[in-house]
């Protein structure tokens, strides 16, 4: 056993005295991330400055068989950065540099702790941007985006993180440093990068990330459309896609979500009696964008929109977007607690699924606000509850699961961008069969044979395994009964065969 003193000394030798936090009381703030329903104290928090230090930290921990996990800004919504096994947390917050930009070849190399929006801010002056834009982009890091395969509002047209990361320097759980992906064209051999993106920190730690950057579109038009009925808004979404326009984004909020965001610092002033609002953005060449925007407005009208309006200024557009992007946190203004879910459904089943969610809300007595990437069919039901009421937390978790099961039942998935983490680990069983879970464990084994790197996240133990363990426990607990049973069978067996 390695003593805590030994651990702290070794970590300080690698990253420097002031970059190791180990005093119990200073670890509380690292006991959870954006998911607060579970908390656990890490053994220490270590903040390396570069790839070499990360590799050295990981190598030492591997040699001493101490579990560890990476942490970015700690904004994850599924508990991926919670130290369930009393891990050493490797914080990448200090590794926040933009290492290089190559405009001619449309690539940037960043450290994992660089904040998503900071990358865009640093290249925007030259007319470029980084496309994936999770709502937390002003604070979440690109390393965290890689781990979660983060989405965002504009991935309808531009794709999610995995479509924008092309290569990475990657520290395997034994401390070995490898290069995955290829900045241009395809990596030769298996698509290791493809596995790594979205692996929620269970396969290793990316320390240098090469991303695609894009030229900012010449023109953008944003429409805000308010509907009396949710169904009309849903139909509008399908109709727009049906005409052959792929907007950069189509976002939707329902009545309760609108109430919440209108109480925040970003007040739009939604009429209280409308059921749904759509935020639709088209971008591209100026010559054509206007025409697309006109068609979008026309389609809204055909679908009984109450009012539809194109943003007249960048300020107005920014306000609409802030209002949407602050929606999760703003739920704090209408409810003491909430759980945000992240199911995805086929776009064509939107109306039906929303009705089901309404029923679930009615049956459970818990209010559910809906905020979602309507174009992708990615729903974020916000289940409101009060943890001070006994039993309500459990009820909310149950309702969350129910909603996800509805998504899987219509052919969708339990998570579109927030990740499985701890939160949805049991729901994985609803989506995947045992052998499919086994197949994913096999992948983890290839990278992370000792399961030291963020164990207990993303993939549940296979049910079979649980059953075996349970059976073993039952036997152990009832050893007398079972031994008696064995004796009995041993005695009776010959009789029965005779």
């Amino acid at each position, binding site marked *: 056993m390695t003593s805590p003193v030994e651990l702290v000394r070794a970590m300080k030798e690698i990253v420097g005295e002031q970059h190791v*936090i180990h*005093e119990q*009381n*200073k670890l*509380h*703030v*690292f006991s*959870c*991330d*954006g998911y*607060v329903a579970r908390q656990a104290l890490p053994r220490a928090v270590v*903040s390396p400055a570069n790839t070499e230090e990360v590799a050295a930290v990981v190598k030492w921990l591997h040699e001493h068989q101490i579990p560890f996990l990476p942490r970015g*800004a*700690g*904004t994850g919504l599924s508990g991926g950065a919670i130290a369930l096994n009393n891990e050493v947390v490797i*914080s990448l*917050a*200090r590794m*926040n540099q933009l290492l290089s930009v190559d405009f001619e070849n449309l690539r940037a190399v960043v450290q994992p*702790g660089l*904040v998503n929006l*900071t990358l865009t801010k640093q290249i925007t002056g030259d007319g470029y941007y980084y496309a994936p834009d999770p709502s*937390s982009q*002003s*604070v*979440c890091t690109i390393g965290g985006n890689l781990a979660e395969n983060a989405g965002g509002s504009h991935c309808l047209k531009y794709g999610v993180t995995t479509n924008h990361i092309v290569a990475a320097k990657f520290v395997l759980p034994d401390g070995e440093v490898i290069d995955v992906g290829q900045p241009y064209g395809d990596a030769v051999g298996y698509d290791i990068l493809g596995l790594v993106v979205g692996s929620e920190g269970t396969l290793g730690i990316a320390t240098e990330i090469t991303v695609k950057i894009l030229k900012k579109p010449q023109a953008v038009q944003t429409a805000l459309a308010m509907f009396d009925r949710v169904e009309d808004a849903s139909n509008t979404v399908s109709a727009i896609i049906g005409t052959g326009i792929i907007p950069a984004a189509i976002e939707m909020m329902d009545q309760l979500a609108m109430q919440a965001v209108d*109480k*925040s*610092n970003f007040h739009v002033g939604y009429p209280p009696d409308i059921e749904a609002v759509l935020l639709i953005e088209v971008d591209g060449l100026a010559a054509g964008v206007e025409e697309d925007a006109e068609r979008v407005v026309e389609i809204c009208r055909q679908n009984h929109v109450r009012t539809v309006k194109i943003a007249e200024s960048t300020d107005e557009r920014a306000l609409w977007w802030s209002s949407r992007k*602050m*929606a*999760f*946190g*703003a*739920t*704090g*203004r209408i409810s*003491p*607690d*909430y759980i945000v879910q992240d199911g995805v459904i086929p776009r064509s089943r939107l109306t039906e699924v929303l009705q089901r969610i309404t029923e679930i809300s009615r049956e459970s007595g818990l209010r559910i606000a809906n905020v979602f990437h309507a174009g992708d069919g990615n729903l974020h039901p916000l289940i409101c509850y009060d943890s001070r009421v006994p039993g309500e937390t459990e009820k909310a978790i149950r309702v969350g699961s129910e909603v996800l099961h509805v998504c899987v039942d219509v052919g969708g998935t339990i998570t579109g961008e927030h990740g499985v983490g701890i939160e949805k680990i049991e729901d994985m069983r609803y989506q995947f069969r045992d052998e499919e879970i086994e197949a994913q464990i096999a992948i983890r084994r290839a990278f992370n044979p000792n399961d030291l790197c963020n164990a207990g996240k993303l993939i549940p133990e296979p049910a079979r395994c649980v059953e075996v363990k349970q059976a073993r426990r039952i036997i152990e607990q009832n050893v007398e009964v079972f031994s008696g049973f064995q004796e009995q069978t041993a005695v009776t067996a010959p009789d029965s065969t005779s």
Partner: protein
Amino acid sequence: MAKAEPELVQMSRHVSAFRWPDAPEEEKFSVCVHCGFCLDVCPTYQELKDENHSPRGRVLLIKEAAEGKLPLDESVIDPVFTCLDCRACETVCPSGVQVGSLIETARGQAHAAYPPVGRAGTVERIFLRGVFPHRSRLRAIGKFIRFYQRSGLRTVVRKTGALSVLPHAAREMEAVIPEIAADMAVDALPERIPARDAKKGTAVLFTGCVMDVFFAHVNEATARVAVRNGLEVLVPREQVCCGALQIHAGDREQARIMAKTNIDVFLATGADYLIINAAGCGAALKEYPDLFRDDPTYGQRARDFSARVRDISELLVEVGFEAPKGHINKTVTYHDACHLCHAQHIRSQPRQLLRAIPDLKLVELPDSERCCGSAGIYNLTHPDMASALLERKMDDIPETADAVVMGNPGCMMQIRLGVHKRQRDLDVLHTVELLDEAYQKEAAEQ
């Protein structure tokens, strides 16, 4: 009986570490949903990259201390005092956590638990309790500094190294103390100045302490532009320092004494507004009700008082101001003082005033809402952090600017220090100074 012990243990674990009145309120910290949107706007998190020194972290520490999960020790106190109280987090917080109020009340608890010692203790003993609350002592200090500057004593002191008794940060500050006026505005201005033209209301001019000692001319300029725009200005002699520095330091008891005086003095005048040109004081005056949560009488008086407090830029835009006709041919940039933009949500008004000045070119300051490191007495208590933030602010000020403009004396002192250290040819001005200059020129040009 066997059950009694675990319950006791459980209870003792849940005794709040905040044992004094006026503790951080549960409904304020329980609003935090731990989303982390505040991390990247927090200057101390940007510098330290340690979540203990982030708004979300501090709120969690306060919550855990309140729930008895953490003692009120260094692990809580250090982050709570490293906070600049700049409120940048409040601007981005989707669920509306009042971080500033939580920090200030938590500091109050720390203050009660451990009376300040060391450098913070000296600062508090001498200045926060000894000088600022007392008009006469402030006046004496002002006179002394003026004497010091004019008598040649400054040269002597600098040569003899007598300044080395002061902390390094204070020594640096000494170099940039502006030329002190003969009188503070509160003494120099008449008690009642009638409005020019049609009267739009009566306003008490809050002269403050630092502003009035170091920047008395800004107070005088404020009075002139108010009068110029139809306000009758009152300058009651009995007013005292607002108490913001005491609140930031956790000395809420002293702050309450000062607040009561100001409330009494102002309400007795029956004025429509109280105008203030110092962002930090403005925020504190607007938040007086927070000090009297447990005092029904003064709670109501504080609310009546705060409802009439206006920053000078805010009031000018509210009652309507006349665009000056005097030209100022300069390029300036505007720094958003934390307590104007984050605490009072005043961003457009000062810019509106500046844009109204003919020929004045306003260029935006990148990340203009990031704290300059001044933060009340923070630059004295946390010089390293303050200096790191000042460096960043100085890096951001555009090369083309002739002057950097703001609405807070603390920022003015801090940025003067930055200009001095870098030997930049850059004026540090208050918004009303420029506006006043333009009005003066208009008179001259006519």
